[in-house]
């Protein structure tokens, strides 16, 4: 039971991370290979505020998210005008730089040995509830004026400008939203594991989230969630297969990308009716 709870908690946190990638990559078409460093910023800021300054947890959350947005602004402002491939490079560099700083500021962060002794404030209810709220917000974002304009500039920037979209500003907005969201995921993570070290938040984490968004279908929010559920729990389900589990995980990803290049759901969104249909067809089959 404890294991199940822990897997579900981690999956909820992963869902928040994947949603933040969905907003920046799925909707806006930008690649952030340093996304996990915003998670590090969230985890370390909140961890330090609570353990060193004795700040109450809710206040620490707010400051940590603000910190994520602030760092997003520092990276985003000068780079968001660049071409998409350069943005991927710059965010990658930024992410690794953050890890390096955390590794070397030993007196504050504990360096490579990590920061321990965080109280376990996060539980399944908080993580799961947060994931649901983030899904709700991302859904509303997608179907708002912001989401539509993001999708528009993703397909054609020139046409987007010609209908009055401020492309630079909108990209920055999407980037900051996702930075703030990821920082929050970092807070939840730190206060669940009670211990963080910089290595957890390197670029492979960001890449993992990007893979999940592509696996689920690049334009599909429900796809991203389903994919985070599958790929987030798969390594745990496969634990009995010990070292083979990574192979099985990778092969699963390869098969999907090969046979469904647009991902599980493509640009479609899963609707309640689809799930009902699925269940009724199961019942008939049984």
């Amino acid at each position: 039971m404890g294991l199940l709870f822990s897997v579900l908690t981690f999956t909820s946190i992963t869902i928040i991370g994947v949603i933040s990638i969905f907003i920046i990559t799925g909707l806006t078409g930008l690649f952030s290979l340093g996304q996990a460093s915003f998670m590090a910023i969230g985890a370390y800021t909140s961890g330090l505020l609570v353990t060193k300054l004795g700040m109450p947890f809710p206040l620490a959350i707010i400051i940590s998210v603000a910190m994520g947005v602030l760092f997003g602004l520092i990276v985003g402002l000068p780079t968001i005008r660049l071409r998409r491939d350069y943005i991927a490079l710059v965010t990658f560099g930024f992410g690794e730089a953050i890890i390096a700083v955390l590794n070397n500021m030993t007196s504050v962060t504990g360096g490579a040995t990590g920061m321990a002794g965080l109280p376990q404030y996060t539980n399944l209810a908080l993580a799961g509830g947060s994931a649901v709220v983030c899904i709700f917000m991302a859904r509303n974002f997608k179907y708002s004026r912001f989401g539509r304009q993001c999708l528009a500039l993703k397909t054609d920037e020139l046409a987007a400008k010609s209908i009055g979209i401020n492309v630079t500003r909108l990209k920055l907005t999407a980037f900051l939203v996702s930075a703030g969201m990821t920082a929050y995921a970092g807070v939840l993570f730190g206060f669940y594991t009670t211990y963080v070290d910089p290595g957890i938040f390197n670029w492979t984490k960001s890449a993992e989230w990007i893979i999940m968004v592509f696996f689920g279908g690049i334009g599909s929010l429900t796809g991203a969630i389903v994919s985070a559920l599958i790929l987030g729990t798969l390594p745990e389900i496969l634990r009995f297969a010990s070292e083979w589990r990574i192979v099985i995980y990778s092969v699963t990803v390869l098969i999907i990308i090969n046979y469904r290049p647009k991902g599980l759901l493509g640009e479609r969104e899963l609707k309640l009716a689809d799930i009902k249909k699925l269940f009724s067809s199961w019942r008939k089959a049984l």
Partner: protein
Amino acid sequence: MSILKTENIAKHFGGIYAIKDISIELGRNDLVSIIGPNGAGKTTLFNLISGVYKPEHGKVIFQDSDITTQPPHMRSRGGISRTFQNIRLFEGLSVKENILAAMDPRSKYNLFDAFFLTPARMKQDKENVEKAHELLDIIGLWNERDKQPGNLPYGLQRKLEIARALASEPAVLLLDEPAAGLNPSEVRDFIDLIHKIKEDFGLSILLIEHRMQVVMEMSRWIYVINFGELLAQGKPDEIQKNPEVIKAYIGEEEAC
């Protein structure tokens, strides 16, 4: 009274002038055409007016203010809309959403409203959807509203581009070869549509077009561009008889 004009505007790429000192003028509720052989610089002129390029020198004046240095999205918000020669619709958005996206830059609600479905957002989006439905009805795309633009026949894609341009509530509409690729019956239909939207929306239209039927029937005034320079200008019947223009289009007799 002109609503839009360029004053001695110029743009070169490398050492070659694509547009050299061109001045044109468009009046209120007017329809002016720009014609010329391929590569004459017509689309470059549109790009200068809509802000895709910055001119080397010269000015773009819109409603008596100098907009030469304004970025494209500000010009669109100010009231200059355009379509593209090679259709540029937003794939991944439905026909209706393509139109909504053009209204969104002027929607008033903020991020907080977007995230938490506040009444302000619901009201604005509802109004926009109603406006989009009206527009789809006028243009004749009502039955296609939930389709992906890529799945529409060519003629309807052209119409959708015009509808999207109209959704940003322009005062001036720049149409870049809107009748290209249409069959003769679609062209007739298209001419009627342009007349209709021009009157209904009180638009001033600047048109680039190769189909002489469209140009001669619709324009009040025509500018002829060749090699980036203004070759001639005048009323449709004057242009048809102009020897310079004929020379530019079909060459001289000796050259044959």
